[in-house]
């Protein structure tokens, strides 16, 4: 006889978005826009640094977007969206007060309450890889005594593509924190470092036994950064990567975000590198 299933689905539709409103919308670069939202119910989103939500723009569709702010920064939650798809293009048109639908938060988070605690933290971010990692940077800086030295490395293709420029200046001034940035190519006025992100790593001294690295960037970046970190003595179980895939449903069903047997929407987006180092499709 078949068991009668008694389950939560009879009261809850996992695909049903909750209404939220835009509370801030500002251009950040030529292709990136900063957006902040609040749930209409007024309750905090309840996310952890590194998680994502599914954003619905009425009449356009739904897309997975990383949360860029730390839960320590109030009920509003922030995103930075690159204009690349239907939904992100529509999000670039959003004005304060506009309604959207939100599902989530989904996925795993940076181990701010676990492996990172009490350790030196090294953030390695390429381009919009800084966006999800910013939630963890803010969290670490908001709980300064719980962590050792915080090093933030940020690389972009050009100076104009840098994100959170004003905020990064604050990070550089924070106690026991280092902020370094580089660009692949300068623009005439640029006087800072030129070179890919890995050129910043030799400028950093780490204590491998008490350092945890957080890595996020374009697909091509991971293997070079990881190889360099290994050379610096950091073990795979001290590296955390946030991986991008199309997390369409967010609940481990639709199949789009699979990395071999893993679902990025459930098992990720944040993975301990040691856990995915042997997984062919991961990096």
């Amino acid at each position, binding site marked *: *006889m*078949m068991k009668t*299933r008694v*389950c*939560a*689905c*009879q009261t*809850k*539709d*996992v*695909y*049903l*978005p909750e*209404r*939220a409103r835009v509370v801030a919308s500002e251009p950040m670069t030529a292709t990136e826009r900063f957006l902040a939202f609040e749930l209409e119910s007024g309750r905090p989103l309840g996310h952890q640094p590194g998680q994502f939500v599914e954003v*619905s723009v*009425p*009449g*356009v*569709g*739904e*897309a997975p977007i990383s949360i860029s702010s730390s839960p320590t920064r109030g009920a509003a939650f922030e995103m930075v969206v*690159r204009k*690349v*798809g239907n*939904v*992100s293009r529509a999000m670039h048109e959003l004005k304060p007060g506009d*309604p*959207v*639908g939100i599902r989530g938060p989904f996925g795993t988070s940076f181990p701010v309450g676990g492996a990172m605690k009490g350790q030196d933290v090294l953030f390695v971010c390429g381009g919009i890889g800084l966006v999800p990692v910013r939630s963890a940077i803010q969290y670490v800086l908001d709980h300064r005594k719980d962590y050792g030295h915080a090093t933030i490395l940020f690389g972009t293709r050009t100076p104009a593509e840098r994100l959170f420029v004003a905020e990064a200046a604050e990070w550089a001034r924070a106690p026991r924190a280092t902020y370094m940035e580089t660009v692949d190519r300068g623009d005439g006025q640029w006087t800072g470092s030129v070179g890919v992100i890995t050129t910043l790593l030799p400028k950093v001294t780490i204590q491998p036994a008490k350092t945890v690295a957080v890595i996020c960037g374009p*697909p091509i970046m991971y293997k070079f950064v990881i190889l360099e970190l290994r050379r610096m003595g950091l073990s795979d179980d001290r590296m955390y990567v946030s991986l*991008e*895939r*199309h997390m*369409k*449903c967010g*609940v*481990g*069903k*639709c*199949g*789009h975000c*699979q*990395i*071999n*047997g893993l679902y990025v929407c*459930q098992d990720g987006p944040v993975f301990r590198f040691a856990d995915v180092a042997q997984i*062919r*499709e991961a990096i």
Partner: protein
Amino acid sequence: MRKKPTRKPTIRKLTDSALRTWVAGLIRRQRVIGVQADGERFAFKPLTRAEDLRLDYDVTKIPPKKLFQPAAEPLLEYDQAANYRSIFETEPFVLFGVHPYDMVAILQMDQVFSEKHCDAHYFARRQNATIVVCDVQKASPNVFAGCMGTATIRKGYDVLMTRVGGHYVVEAGSPKGEALMEGLKNRPEADEASLHRREQVWEDNAKFLVRHTLRMKPAEIPALLQRSEDHPVWEEKAARCFSCGSCNLVCPTCYCFDVRDDVKWDLQGGMRRRYWDGCMLLNFANVAGGHNFRKNRADRYRHRYYRKGLYVPAKLGGEISCVGCGRCITACVSKIANPVEIYNRLLEER
């Protein structure tokens, strides 16, 4: 609480004409989806006349998954103010004539759609269904259910029918099934001889629904795949793959989906629907901005077999997510989609 006394399931004997009377009665009272001829082949379609029911079919073109996860399925309605409202299918129906291997697939889908996050849309349809399973009477050209342990089934259905000689043995498998068999109250109980012949049918089906012979136990497939990531068979077969996704569409255990918002004509709102998708299609693992995380054809090809034999089984307590219906073998235009051939080939040296 006192345990209810376990009642023996109702088992009756049904002639063809009694079957027709029963089905005609069901059609008058509720929605019945049954197997019918569809051109040269067969399909699950709404049944309007009892005589159209073809329990002697070999295999349907599309598995019964379409009743629980339709190819285009409304999930939500929305308006421009971002009010989203769930849409659920609420009409009960009888699904008549499901083969055991397809029933096994449905039970697997019950697990994947309830695992961790329960899918209310799937279960709205599923709970509205009363499923009548019918043992296979005619082997399809590519069936290998006998190798997968899915040629027969002993639980999970609401009613099980088996043709023995010139009549059917009909057994209830659930309270829903008992209710459906209320209409058979006046039919005789199945006699010993019929039940004995039914056992024989089960034995025969397990033996003969084998058009392709798997040279291993299904339980050995996960370990075999684990050591076969670099086997040349993936490149060899994928070299002839058109990435058309036919194998995905006809598979009773392929459930990947795409979600799209369809805007209404008045532009004031619309419907969010999910559509069947397929991991063999080129753009399946695309992200916004155009990066394709599974661009290589052989990687997509391997991914599909790994889902069936390794990834999804991890969600199913080890059960292989291929039920041996053989539809993919028939549907594949390049003739490269025979799972038995692939698994057997993996046994060979590279």
